[in-house]
């Protein structure tokens, strides 16, 4: 413990910590402890100012229009949408079906193909486990990628334990999968291919249409986790030949705790349900549909459809502004992920010779993250960045900037200026940066020789 603190205060750079990491292989417990040490949780005092929100990939604030649509169903219209014998049930059911249509319209689907769930994690679980288990007697193989969300990867681990074969496709250094490799990986007993539309950490947009084409021609079901894409880029499940698609409410300015799964009817995709019970949602997802949340998701989808172009051009403009400011002031900054095939609102930057956590701590009045919120408690470098072949050091110095509907120019300028100032400060403190300025190749140094 003592040695660590000393190293940290003297070096304040990731490579030093990386050297420490190689010396002592730590358990998860001590890693968690160290995390606690670096970024302490602290509540904002009453008279303090709130940090700016720049983490729109983790979650989005609810749009006031969404809340406005939901509130009547939190107050007066509280009926169970599955009650068939009274007006309370009927009005809730009508609201739920309207919401279903709003979700379906956004992605070019039929309302009967939409199943309400608790979120994209549940949708992903249902798709992977559901399809795999339903077709298990004939098909034992599933293909996914190395940069999927944790819930897809973890579902695959469970399936592996059940005897399925899973192929985790690598991605190229730009974060995109190789279509030829995908084609070669498909076997006669492949039941499902699951590739996310937009990555939550680096924002790259996979060639979903081409993947859909390949899967359809090989009669393999295609699932895509579109939590970060729906409502932000135009999606049409028919054009893209998508068989299953996961949607999340709270990534599109809707309420938390609700999502949807698109399940194609023709050609029909069959799932083994995970949750058993009253047989709601065509038996695929038993349990009462939470009317207010479903209404909120529906409203969020309708607004997203109306505002897509407006939001997209604004988010692009702000992203460009942020990148331009940072890149013009700071050398040795790497943009992770493909520069073109991406959603502009997710910018993942690696600041060489600066430790991500130190930078996050220095930027405490901006709410940022070094990657996925689900894994932000661990000090391990992001597996997504590792999959695109980012150097260990650079992977540790990455920060994700999330821009959304409610971001303003002032917030972008503030973030950029603060970021530039802090990176410069941290680099000045870093002996590594000094050595690089003197022309020493860091790769030639043996860190662990004592």
């Amino acid at each position, binding site marked *: 413990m003592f040695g660590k603190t000393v190293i940290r205060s003297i070096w304040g750079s990731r490579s030093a910590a990386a050297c420490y990491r190689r010396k002592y292989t730590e358990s998860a417990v001590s890693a968690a402890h160290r995390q606690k040490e670096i970024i302490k949780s602290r509540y*904002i005092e*009453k*008279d*303090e*100012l*709130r*940090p*700016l*929100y720049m983490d729109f990939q983790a979650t989005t*604030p609810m749009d*006031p*229009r969404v*809340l*406005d649509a939901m509130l009547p169903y939190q107050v007066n219209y509280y009926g169970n949408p599955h009650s068939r014998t009274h007006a309370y049930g009927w009005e809730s059911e009508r609201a739920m079906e309207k919401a279903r249509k709003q979700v379906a319209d956004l992605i070019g689907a039929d309302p009967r193909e939409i199943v309400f769930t608790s979120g994209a994690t549940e949708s992903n679980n249902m798709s992977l486990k559901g399809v795999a288990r339903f077709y298990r007697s004939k098909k034992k193989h599933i293909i996914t990628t190395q940069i999927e969300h944790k819930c897809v990867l973890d579902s695959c681990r469970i399936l592996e334990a059940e005897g399925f074969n899973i192929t985790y496709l690598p991605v190229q250094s730009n974060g995109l999968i190789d279509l030829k490799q995908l084609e070669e990986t498909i076997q006669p007993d492949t039941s499902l291919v699951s590739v996310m539309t937009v990555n939550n950490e680096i924002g790259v947009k996979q060639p979903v249409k081409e993947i859909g084409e390949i899967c359809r021609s090989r009669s393999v079901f295609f699932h895509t986790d579109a939590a970060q894409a729906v409502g932000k880029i135009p999606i049409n499940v028919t054009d893209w030949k998508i068989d299953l698609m996961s949607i999340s409410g709270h990534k599109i300015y809707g309420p938390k705790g609700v999502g949807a799964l698109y399940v194609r009817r023709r050609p029909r995709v069959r799932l083994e349900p995970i949750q058993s019970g009253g047989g709601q949602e065509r038996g695929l997802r038993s349990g009462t549909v939470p009317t207010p949340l479903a209404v909120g998701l529906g409203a969020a989808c309708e607004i997203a459809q109306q505002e897509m172009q*407006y939001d997209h051009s604004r988010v692009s403009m702000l992203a460009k502004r942020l990148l331009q400011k940072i890149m013009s002031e700071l050398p040795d900054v790497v943009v992770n992920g493909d520069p073109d095939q991406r959603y502009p609102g997710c910018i993942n930057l690696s600041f060489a010779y600066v430790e991500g956590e130190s930078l996050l701590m220095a930027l405490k*009045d901006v709410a940022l993250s070094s990657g996925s919120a689900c894994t932000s408690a661990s000090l391990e470098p992001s597996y997504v960045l590792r999959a695109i072949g980012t150097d260990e050091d650079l992977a540790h110095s990455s920060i994700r900037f999330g821009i959304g*509907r*409610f*971001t*303003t120019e*002032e*917030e972008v300028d*503030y973030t950029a200026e603060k970021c530039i100032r802090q990176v410069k400060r941290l680099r000045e403190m870093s002996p590594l940066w000094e050595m690089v300025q003197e022309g020493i190749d860091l790769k030639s140094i043996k860190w662990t020789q004592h």
Partner: protein
Amino acid sequence: MAISSKSQVLSLYKILLKESKQFPSYNYRTYALRRVRDAFRENKNVDDPKTLEILLNRAWDSLAVIQRQVAIGKLYSAQKTVVETEGMKKAS
């Protein structure tokens, strides 16, 4: 566009801006102001009375939403954000 409807549009625009300024949340306030301005600018050359009517109805609905949401916002207001003093000057 007839004179009467023109003044009607203008006054509705002013009410929308006035109400939007009441949002206690910095992000909602700046968004509402920006969105109202951009929507009116985008449709400033609409002449067709039917389209105009649809747009005006939508604006009235938005006004009602803004008024309700401002009231809710005031009930549960939170601390100001770090850019707010700057932002308020520019937004208003």
